[in-house]
């Protein structure tokens, strides 16, 4: 069942307001996506917990309505030379 990339981004940002979200539609079918989510709120969380936080933001759609979401999470890197 297709789900627009903008909707995925909206849901993630609704739960993780500071998130920097990048989404790629891998197959061009609105069903297989890759998402990279960068948020300071991930600081100190295990990778599992970071991914669970994103899955929770998507409210149970992952694995169901949203078949495939390749996920990468990260904490923002401090900028150098400022």
């Amino acid at each position, binding site marked *: 069942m297709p789900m627009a990339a903008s909707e995925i981004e909206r849901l993630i940002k609704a739960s993780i307001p500071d998130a920097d979200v990048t989404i790629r539609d891998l197959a061009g079918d609105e069903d297989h996506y890759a998402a990279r989510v960068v948020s300071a709120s991930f600081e100190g969380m295990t990778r599992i917990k970071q991914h669970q936080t994103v899955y929770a933001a998507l409210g149970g759609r992952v694995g169901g309505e949203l078949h495939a979401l*390749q996920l990468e999470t990260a904490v923002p890197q401090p900028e150098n030379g400022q």
Partner: protein
Amino acid sequence: MSDSKSRIDEIVKSNDVVLFMKGTALFPQCGFSSRAIAILDHLGVSYETVDVLQDPEVRTGIKEYSDWPTIPQLYVKGEFVGGSDIMMEMFESGELKQLIGAEA
């Protein structure tokens, strides 16, 4: 503990490296499961697999067991490690080899 949960618990605790997947190691039925197998094969470790497509109870139960919505799921020494994305990140950083290899 429900039946399926205690069965899953038994599988997780009695195998050092176990992958819950769709299909078998020889014939994965999903791209993510296939990727997970490729990573384990590349590491050259021995592992067990559980085909959730053959067992609807485990297929549902494993998602509750780990509070994780997708399959594949890798467990090492009784601990949930993650899905194929986390496996790939940990493989690339060398962490997965360290985790599996340390006591193998």
